[in-house]
């Protein structure tokens, strides 16, 4: 589903990722483990297209996406739940999801399907995204991403700043997506136990290089 071959990336003249090669098969949950500043988010930003790869090749479903703009990658089915959730703060929960449906070329009814899939969102559907708790925002960010009907979802530190009870709820939600929707997922985390509960295998990122 996703393959990286010898990918390098960085910010301006500062190299961050060096010679990254990895693959994620269809239906697989793959984890990327690493401490702060090791390049985890940079890796997802490079795959998502926010940051250009300076060298190497990124393929999705056998197609080279290395030079494609961000929205084209999303339209091809690359879902991306960014660090910090990045909820549209002045849109309601429902509007956040409807905007994603429109952006991803999906019918608006898909937003209602996702609200049904994540019951926690139903009672807060008309509340603005900016006033939700961190956990609610994380679930919304995941549901919003699913509104675009992605084939592969990248999750950047989904448990960051989330209270333990909600963390368990997120694990359950992701397991449900894995088992019911057969989703493919690339997860970036600092929490090894979280990755262990979800992923079939994990890579470790150290100073911009994959070490395992």
């Amino acid at each position, binding site marked *: 589903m996703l393959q990286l071959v010898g990918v390098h990336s960085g910010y301006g003249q500062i190299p961050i990722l060096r010679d990254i090669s990895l693959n994620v098969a269809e239906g697989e949950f793959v984890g990327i483990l690493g401490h702060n500043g090791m390049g985890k988010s940079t890796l997802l930003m490079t795959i998502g297209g926010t940051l250009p790869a300076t060298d190497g090749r990124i393929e999705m479903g056998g197609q080279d996406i290395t030079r494609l703009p961000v929205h084209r990658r999303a339209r091809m089915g690359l879902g991306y739940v960014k660090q910090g959730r990045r909820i549209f703060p002045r849109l309601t929960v429902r509007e956040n999801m409807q*905007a994603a449906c429109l952006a991803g070329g999906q019918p608006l009814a898909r937003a209602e399907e996702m609200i049904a899939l994540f019951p926690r969102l139903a009672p807060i559907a008309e509340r603005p995204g900016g006033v939700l708790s961190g956990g609610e925002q994380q679930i919304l960010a995941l549901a919003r991403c699913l509104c675009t009907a992605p084939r592969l979802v990248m999750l950047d530190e989904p448990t960051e700043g989330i209270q333990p009870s909600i963390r368990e709820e997120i694990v359950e939600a992701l397991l449900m997506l894995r088992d019911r929707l057969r989703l493919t997922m690339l997860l970036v985390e600092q929490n090894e136990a979280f990755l262990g509960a979800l992923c079939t295998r994990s890579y470790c990122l150290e100073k911009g290089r994959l070490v395992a």
Partner: protein
Amino acid sequence: MDYVAIILLQTAISIANLVLISAGLAVIFGMMRVINFAHGEFLMLGGYTAVIATQHGVPLLVSCFILAPVLVGLVGLVVEYLVIRHLYGRLLDTMLASWGVSLILIGLVTVAFGNSVSGISTPFGSLSIGRFSIGFYELFLVAVTLVMVIAGYLVMRYSRVGLIARATMQDRDMAASLGVNQRAVYRATFVTGAALSGLAGALIAPIAGVVPTIGASYLAKCFITVISGGPAIIAGTLSASGLLGGVGGIMTFLATPVLAEVALLAAAVVLLRVLPQGITSKFFRRSQ
């Protein structure tokens, strides 16, 4: 009684004028964070379109509501394609480049039509209120502005385009990661802003006349209105126009139009001292 009525009407006209001439700049700034220094010249081009088309027998309303927005929208499309799209995310560079565009447009229009004031007669006659009178056309502009604001609100609040626009305004990178083609949104925004400026320029041409350099006199007022309004396009433009236009309208009547301009600028300075991020950074934060 007629004194109160005329002050109220004058204030409403002053506010509507500010909303009308600032709308195009507000749309472009609100969506793209681009300060279009050629905004005044887009207004000027709209004015010239109305004047020339009307002089050639085209009905005024057709030239205002169809010809001017279409023509200036097309100019906006060319400017976006040739200049602006290369400078997204670079606020100062876009200001400088659009200033350059404004100088080119002034030069071209001066060469084509000369540096003298052109105009068309103000239609619809006037309304007498006691010993005062006020032009029906100015009241018509208030109505047009009102319709424009309501239509803008409805589009932003209830349409699919509006939802994508609001999402992009709030977090353009996230919107792109969900599949929004930022380039296309920005291009459509710039063209819409230019078309709105063309419409406004054409509508005020019968009152103000047109001259190639008239844009500069509009730009300062539009600029302070949009900056004073803050991040929300409609609520920001309305609230800043209400405040600044209110001050201007009342002072025009109580003192002179020149003092009214001074008062308007002074009010903007005080406002930005108190609310440096604009009115909607503090109030109406959930508005469009």
